[in-house]
């Protein structure tokens, strides 16, 4: 964040003392007027629902009467002792532990490749970026057809002589299949951030390394990757947050099945709140999700910062 650069510019304006105070009150009012629609929107659409989730999570809503009453920690104790919720947590954590590093590595590899000076490289980069524009629900629909018994993927498997796979209908392959479609939809998007990081590395470093006779691999491991740590850390964190909130493919394709193997936390929250009508428990799960995300982001920040020092 660079608030400092902004201060330098406007602080230098000269003004008389009395006039200055009147002027500064006026400019403050003008600034607040310009900011207020944005601030009101952010408070009502982001902060208030967060607070409401916390307060609702301590209440119980009667399905019969619709009356809501304070219920202490019972929504939390219910969730934390519910074996269904335990398996949701395990599925969500394992899914993320595999998916996010894979996305970071693949998007970095693609960024390194398409940042090279190659014939028509802009076209190849744009083709890799295309899925980033496809809405998540459409990604799910495209891949559900591609992963059908007579879909694209099985047809290609047949060409190379492999047997057809059940994919979304198998408990052991469904989560993997969802991982594939998410990776496909996300790669090009995160690649952009790594490319931006690559462009920030000064050419002089590479020139110096070339003079010292460092080869391609040496330059990759001694210059490029260390200096990419910041954008890669950003991608890992942002991508983790996105993957924890994955919802569309589960809701459209698997409804958490087969056998709960794709019951990721966002779908479980939706399921408990709307399909089972358990609003208090759903809100408690929203709060747990936000706490979980805060912890994971904080840990990732800490780890990546220490590595840098």
């Amino acid at each position, binding site marked *: 964040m660079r608030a400092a650069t902004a201060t330098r510019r406007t602080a230098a304006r000269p003004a008389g003392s009395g006039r200055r105070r009147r002027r500064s009150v006026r400019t403050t009012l003008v600034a607040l007027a310009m900011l207020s629609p944005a601030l009101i929107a952010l408070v009502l659409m982001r902060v208030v629902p967060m607070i409401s989730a916390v307060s609702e999570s301590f209440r119980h809503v009667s399905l019969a009467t619709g009356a809501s009453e304070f219920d202490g920690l019972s929504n939390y104790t219910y969730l934390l002792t519910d074996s269904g919720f335990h398996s949701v947590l395990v599925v969500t954590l394992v899914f993320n532990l595999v998916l996010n590093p894979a996305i970071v590595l693949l998007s970095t590899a693609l960024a390194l490749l398409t940042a090279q000076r190659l014939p028509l490289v802009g076209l190849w980069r744009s083709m890799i970026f295309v899925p980033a524009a496809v809405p998540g629900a459409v990604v799910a629909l495209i891949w559900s057809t591609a992963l059908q018994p007579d879909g694209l993927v099985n047809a290609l498997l047949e060409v190379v002589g492999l047997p057809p796979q059940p994919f979304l209908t198998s408990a052991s392959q469904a989560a993997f299949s969802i991982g594939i479609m998410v990776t496909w939809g996300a790669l090009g998007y995160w690649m952009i951030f790594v490319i931006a990081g690559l462009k920030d590395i000064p050419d002089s470093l590479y020139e110096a390394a070339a003079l010292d006779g460092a080869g391609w691999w040496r330059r990759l491991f001694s210059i490029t990757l260390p200096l990419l740590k910041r954008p890669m850390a950003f*991608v890992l964190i942002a991508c983790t947050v996105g993957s924890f909130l994955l919802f569309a493919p589960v809701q459209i394709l698997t409804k958490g099945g087969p056998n709960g193997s794709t019951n990721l936390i966002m779908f479980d*929250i939706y399921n408990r709140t709307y399909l089972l009508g358990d609003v208090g428990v759903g809100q408690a799960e929203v709060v747990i999700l936000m706490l979980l995300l805060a912890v994971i982001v904080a840990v990732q920040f800490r780890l990546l910062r220490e590595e840098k020092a």
Partner: protein
Amino acid sequence: MRRSRGGTVVLTAAAILAALAVFLPVWWVFVSSTRPGNSYVENMTPLSWLAFVPVGGDLTNYSGLLSGPFLTGLFNSFLVAGLTIALGLAIAVPAAYALATIDFPGRGVVFTFIVVVAMIPFDAIAIPLSSLFQDWHLSDSYAGLVLPALANGFAIFVLRQFFLGIPAELLEAAEVDGLGRIATLWRIVLPLSKPALIGAGMMLFLSQWQAYLWPLLIGTSPERQLAPIALANLSTLFTVDLGQIFAGSFVLTIIPMVLLLFFQKQYTESLSTTGLKG
């Protein structure tokens, strides 16, 4: 960096292979969308070249879509995305301009607040917000669909970074010429800021075009469904017409693709701003 000729050939081949592999599903969806009904299957087992070459097809799937709920959905998606861009920029531009050019007490706090709130992932609070919208009588309305997307802290951030780069002398000169703050913003700053406006506009557009959970929760009656919801509903019908799913998927993909074709540079530059300087 100098590279051997062989190296260039290998890297180019790798880039082409990666691009084709990523692009193949989209292309397959397009070709399959020209095969009426479920007849695309005939080209799949065994895999025929007709699965990837759009000859001999027709547009029946597209005309089929036009008579169903998908058309209403598409209209709603355009309406909601258009309103989001217009109102979102109308909110973000003055906020960003105030943050970038007016020195007022508490500016640092306000800016930090905007950045921190922008990092609250929307989908995490979508479910609590939807119960609030019920209390506020906003569910199942266009206002309900548009409002949450207007609170876009990243758009403010991108615009602020851009405004900071406009030379202070230019703004001072405008002031000396007796141009008011709003007139300076409108007549001097905005015409210079097209890349940032396009970038922030694309962010607002895509945030709405890609939304699924929120429109599912809020646009509940068929007249207010957005296109992705209408399409997903088609896919869960008892007898699925996959041809229409292909056609609808392709329509929802080609629209942002065309926009990116024109605005990819501004959009990706804005994205990188949020990533690296945040």
